[in-house]
């Protein structure tokens, strides 16, 4: 919801006509995603309604504030970096993790929505990256984009991703800067053939 509001608000602030048009298109994509969740979330009885539209934590609030802060017409790179190089990649990761870990039977309606949404996210991500590459034309632009990305990425990492810590599974960092997960024993498969009914 915050994303479609921000994209809608930015349309008037960007001078580049092609970016203006694309923001309008993407604004609707994300509004439609909000509509899908607005319908689906109350159907999940374990959800507490008061939590449905709340940010995951205080760091996520700061992230949205920092991402939506750029307004001046010369800050199109910053606007696009926040959305297409930080927020949407995190959306894709969180949605993909959820899709891959929820039940294909009991949570099928959620998976169906996630598949539609993920297709939009990939398409919009590609559009956004193409717009950024058309705007980033000098080493100074590269530094601007990278600096803004690093600033926002730090905040969203602190938030633990768009839905808080655990958005894409448990952290692999244990007792310090250990970046490689411990090897784990694979779970036993649950699809062993039964003797009954096998021809």
């Amino acid at each position, binding site marked *: *919801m915050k994303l*479609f*509001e*921000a*994209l*809608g*608000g*930015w*349309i*008037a*602030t*960007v*001078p*580049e*006509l092609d970016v*203006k*048009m*694309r*923001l*309008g*298109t993407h*604004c*609707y*994509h*994300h*509004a*439609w995603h*909000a*509509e899908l969740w*607005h319908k689906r979330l109350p159907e999940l009885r374990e959800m507490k309604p008061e939590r449905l539209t709340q940010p995951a934590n205080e760091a996520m609030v700061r992230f949205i504030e920092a991402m*939506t*802060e*750029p*307004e001046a*017409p010369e800050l199109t790179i910053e606007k696009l970096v926040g959305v297409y190089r930080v927020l949407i990649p995190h959306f894709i990761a969180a949605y993909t993790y959820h899709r891959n870990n929820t039940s294909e039977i009991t949570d099928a309606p959620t998976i169906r929505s996630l598949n539609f949404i993920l297709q939009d996210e990939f398409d919009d991500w590609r559009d956004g990256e193409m717009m950024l590459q058309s705007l980033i034309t000098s080493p100074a632009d590269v530094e601007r984009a990278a600096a803004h990305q690093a600033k926002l990425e730090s905040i969203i990492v602190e938030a633990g991703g768009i839905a808080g810590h655990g958005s894409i599974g448990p952290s692999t960092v244990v007792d310090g800067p250990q970046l490689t997960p411990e090897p784990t024993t694979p779970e036993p498969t649950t699809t062993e053939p039964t003797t009954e009914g096998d021809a």
Partner: protein
Amino acid sequence: MRQFFPVEDLARDERFVQTNMAERIKDPRVPGGGSAKKKSSRSSTNKLTPDRHDASDRARGLMHGIMVGEIQALEGAGRTAHDFDAGDGSGDTIPFALKLDMARQAWDEARHVEISAKLSTWMGTELGEFQENTVLFEAACSNDPVLRLAGVNRALEGLAIDVFTQMKEFGDLAGDPFLEFCEDWMLADEVTHVKMGSDWLRKVTENDPDRRAKALEFQQVVDKLFSFGGARGDTAESSFQLARRFRELAGFTDDEVETIAGLDQQALVERKAAINAMQAAVADS
């Protein structure tokens, strides 16, 4: 990002030239433009038809005006999706479903910008060849979302219905199916946008008659302003007609359409009086 965005800060690239409505109306190349009837006109009406000697310039000017209008409509819809929190419609809030409709409208307007830009190129016009006035976005700057619905969705998108009907007919008469069918597609969207405005205006002000009256009053001000001195109307003198059937589909009642027709007529009478006064002043001097 600020909650409300002033019209003077609208972001444009260097190709655009912005002006006010008075200056834009002085441009003789656009429909309704120029203060006096051209002696060289071979047409018996002000209507834009392919057989006019100035048809090319007028059609190009009108298409350019449509394109910049679509840009501002895109910006306005986006701002309404952004500027107000989701709520019950009171105070500074709008219903969540209205925010979604505004986002949908933003997408439609973005497509219209693209279509209009391509049609302008097709008609031999460069972006910025005609001036842009920003009155549409001004109507979208109100702090009251209901005034935005009245001014933009009902008055200005309603005007778009009239103009697109005219351009569609022009495309048909000129033997230009690209123009005709593009206008027809956009017209269908505009009817949806106006209906959206009509429905939401009634719903949000259901229990607040004062707010509704204020909104409809604002709509009439915008309707009269965008009658372009009576250029829109039901007479032979009108540059473009009031598209009654499409307005009905968009949720206008018969009385509301008659009110707009009356405003158009009033604007025409006032413009004629102003021209007569001006000519008398010149003769006296």
